[in-house]
Every structure is written in C-alpha cells, then in structure tokens.
C-alpha cells in the first residue's frame, strides 16, 4: 500500500489536500458554534448543516477561480468535486468502517474513471474512491480528518493519510473578491541618470 496520496496520483498534492481539509474543519467549527439544542438542534441538524455548508463553500471556492485545480463533478446527490482530474468526496465517519453505500460513486465519476484508474485483476469498478473522512464525535469540531483511498466496491483501504490540520494553507478568496475592484499595482519607481555636467562630474570618478 502506498502511504501517501500523491504517490497514487500527482493531482493529490499535500497543499491541496490540506487546504480542503482546513476548509471542512473551519466550516464544521462554525456550525458547531451555531448549534443550539434549546432551539431544537439535533445531531441530524448539525450533520446536515455541516455537510451542506461544506458543500456550498467548496462550490463557491471552485467558482471563485482562486483554485484552478478545483472543480465540481457532481453538484447534487452524490456530491463530488475534483482535485485536478481526480474525483473526491467527503463524509463524516470512521475511516475503517465506511458504509458500503458511501462507496457508490456518482454517474459522472463512473463515466470519468471507468476507462482509466482500473485494476484488471479486480474488474472495471476497481478504481480508487477518494474521500475526506471527518472522524469526530457529535458537537465537536473536526478532531481528525483523513484522506482515504478505497479500492473498488469492496472498500479495501489502499491509502490513509492523517491530514495535519495545524498547518495553515490559504485557499484563495472564497466568498469575497468577486466583482470587486482589483488591487492597484504600480511599476517600480523610475530612476535615471542626470545628464553629465561639463567639466568636473563631482562624483568621485575623477
């Protein structure tokens, strides 16, 4: 088993994975902060809200063009985005015990991958499903986020990387920045020689 995602696919670079993980972590923290049981919030509302806010923020980030490597493959249903050309999803679960229904890919993913990342020994559905897996208890911000590759429908783990969340990765403007004036940039300050005076230059050359 290759231990690191970028050993499987150059699309899956460390910075990109950390950036998305950080976004998921930030959004979940904000949702946990807003959770209010007196109002009637439940684990279901927290989970639904966290999922939907992560989804919409990833879509906004992809549309902002600040991460040209990020795009959306399946916007509704089995939400799938792409890092480069690699389809990726996210879920909150125990990475070692992912429900098999989660491994069912979206139609767009199947179309994209069935001719490429397959292992002839395991058949045409054997491509790797990549997931950000948030492993955290209820009402707690994301404690651990893993980037996991599951091979085929059996869900055999071929790669599992614990994403270091303490290191900051800036992902570019997510929600502000669209349709706003661009920063003003000036050229370097002009410097030129003064015309030489006739006679003594007075500059130490003589």
């Amino acid at each position: 088993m290759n231990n690191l995602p970028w050993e499987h696919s150059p699309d899956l670079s460390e910075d990109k994975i950390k950036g998305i993980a950080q976004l998921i972590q930030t959004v979940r923290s904000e949702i946990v902060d807003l959770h209010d049981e007196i109002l009637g919030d439940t684990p279901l509302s927290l989970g639904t809200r966290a999922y939907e806010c992560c989804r919409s923020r990833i879509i906004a980030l992809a549309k902002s063009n600040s991460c040209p490597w990020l795009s959306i493959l399946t916007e509704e249903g089995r939400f799938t985005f792409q890092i480069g050309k690699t389809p990726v999803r996210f879920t909150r679960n125990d990475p070692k015990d992912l429900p098999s229904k989660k491994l069912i890919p979206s139609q767009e993913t199947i179309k994209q991958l069935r001719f490429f990342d397959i292992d002839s020994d395991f058949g045409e559905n054997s491509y790797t499903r990549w997931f950000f897996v948030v492993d955290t208890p209820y009402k707690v911000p994301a404690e651990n986020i893993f980037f996991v590759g599951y091979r085929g429908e059996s869900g055999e783990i071929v790669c599992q990387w614990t994403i270091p969340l303490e290191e900051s990765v800036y992902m570019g403007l997510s929600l502000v920045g669209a349709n706003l004036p661009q920063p003003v940039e000036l050229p370097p300050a002009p410097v030129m020689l003064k015309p030489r005076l006739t006679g003594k230059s007075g500059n130490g050359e003589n």
Partner: protein
Amino acid sequence: MVRTDSFFGDKLRLARLLKGLTQKELGDLVLTSRQFIHQLETGTRYPPPDVIGAFCEILQVEKTFFCHQVGNDVKPEQCHFRKRKTTPVGLAYRVLAYSTIFEELVSYLNDLLELPQPDFPVSEHEKEPYSNLDIEKAAENCRKRWRLGIDTPIANLTRVLENFGIVITQFKGVSDKVDALSVNRRFPIIIRNSAKESICRLRFDLAHELGHFILHDGLETGDPPTETEADKFASAFIFPRMAFQKEFPNFKGSRLNWTLIYDLKMRWGMSVKAIIYRANFFGLIDATQYRSANVWLNKTGQSKIEKFDDKIRPEEPELLFNAVNILEKERGISPNQIAKILGIQPGLLSEITGIEFLRKEKPNNIVPFFTRRTL
C-alpha cells in the same frame, strides 16, 4: 580642501553610535580609556594614527571619514520615531546616527540620479489634534492625489511610496524594539525594521510613517496622540472607510466568520487584528465581538504573526537597489566606490542599505599564485 590629517570628534561619535557602542565599550576595544574617547569626541584631544586605524577597523569606516565634520546630523525632534518606554536611550541615538549617514547616501545618489520627487499632500495642521474624520479625509486625499482610488487595495505599498518620492530602506540588527522610523528633511526617508516577519505589520508601519509625513510635518512626534493619529491614518490609507463599509461582512447578532475576515486580510494586506480594530471603530462589530476576537487571536498565538502572513506577497524596497545598480552599469561607480566616497567600508554600506553587495571587486594586478608558477 580638507586636510587628510584632520580629525573631527563628532564623526567619531557618529560612527560609534551607529555601531551601538558606548564610549567605554569603544575604549575597551581600542585599548584606551572612556575618558580619552570622550576627549576625542569633544575635540579636546587628537588620536594617534594607530588608534585611528583601530577605530576604522572596529567602526567599519575609512580614515577619510573623520576628516569631514558632520554636516547636518539628524536631531531627535526631526525624526518620527516611536519612543517607547522600553526603548533604551542608546538605541535612539543609534537610529539617529543611522539616519544621518543614510541621508548622506541619498544626497549623493540624488546628485547623480533623477529620483522620484516627493509628492504628498501635507496637511495644514493646527494646534488642535486631528479629528477622526480629518484623518480619514487626509488618507483619502493622498490616495486620490496618487490616483490609487479609494476602493482599491494596494498590491505593493512599498512601490507606491517609492514612486512618490519616499526612499525606503531596511535595517538589520538594530533592534526589534524599533518598528520603523522616518525623517523628512531634504528627502523623505523611511527606515523599516527587516526583522519583522509579518508583511501586514510592515505595510502598516510604512503607512504609519506616511501618516507622520502628511499629518505631522515639522511637528515633534513620538507621543501617544501623534502615534495614534499615524496609526489611524495607516488604517484609513490601507483600507479606506468606504471600501471597508462595503466589504466588511455583516456580523451583527451573529458570530464572526473568520474565513471571511481572512479573505479581507489577503485582499487588502492588512492584519486581522487591524481589521477587527477598524470594524469596532466603525461600530460594525460590538464591544463583545471585538473582545472575543482579540481573545481568540491571542489564544491561537496570532498576536504578532497571524495565519497566512506567509501567503501575502513580500515587499522589498527597490529604489535604492536600482539606483546603485544604474550607477554601476552606466557610470561604472561600484558600491565599493560609493562606500569610499562616503568614507565607510562596503560592509557598513550593506548594513545601512540592507542590500547585500555580493560582487567582490578584485584588484586586476593580482596574479593567482599557482598560475604564476606555471607561467
């Protein structure tokens, strides 16, 4: 014509202060007494040649350095320099000495080169302190005069200031207790501390010094009211009020969304700490939100260096470097020659300009030993 055997004590004092040495420390280094150094500096005695040689070595100057009187040294009241309670007196003198020598360098470059002329709107100050509105307007006027607009971020603040005639340099190793300082005599000069890791703080310091140029021309600064005014100017210049009110998200009655605030930081090159200060200043967040935001920044270790500081494009002064390069290319005057003209050693020139002059000049009459044997 200056006699080469003359010795001016005020030049010794200048070079000593520049190196941050006390009279006793210098005396110990050249094996003389503190009293002797004092007598030399006050002009009551003259040093023997071997002591002058030792001074040159330790203070990184040439013998000719001592042959000219200090023409017009920078006085404390002419220098915008935040006088903190913790700033040692010796350090204040050191930065003044630094400013004096640096000004000589700029004066020399200005004799040979067409540098951008200073062009900023100096406010007609009165005895009363500025109101907040006066400061906002002063910053906007400056932006308008420089055609920067009042709703656009400034990509490279250092360049903007250099384009409008301000010479910027960075010093290493003076002290991290000095943020930045500025002098506006013949030339407006800003000396910034290169030890700072946060580009947002550097940008803020530059805008702060610009605030002194505009608001406090001819006034003595360094006290809390003038420093606060310069801080307010810096905020207003980097992130003008109209743009701030347009772009700062509405957090009334809700929690702060840090992602959005970091977005603003990246867009405007202003620290999150300064952004939330300004948001509170305009009443866009309440006192509780402001307090909890500061607590969060401190708790997460972001009181000095914040998240994503390293993702903002660094800014380096270019004017001085380009000026020295043009002189060398077009006139054949190398940095070593410039150092010699100023009576200082090349190492000291590097120190005061913050530029590493990598090329070592070799005399062309030296033949490598092994080459010679094989001839």
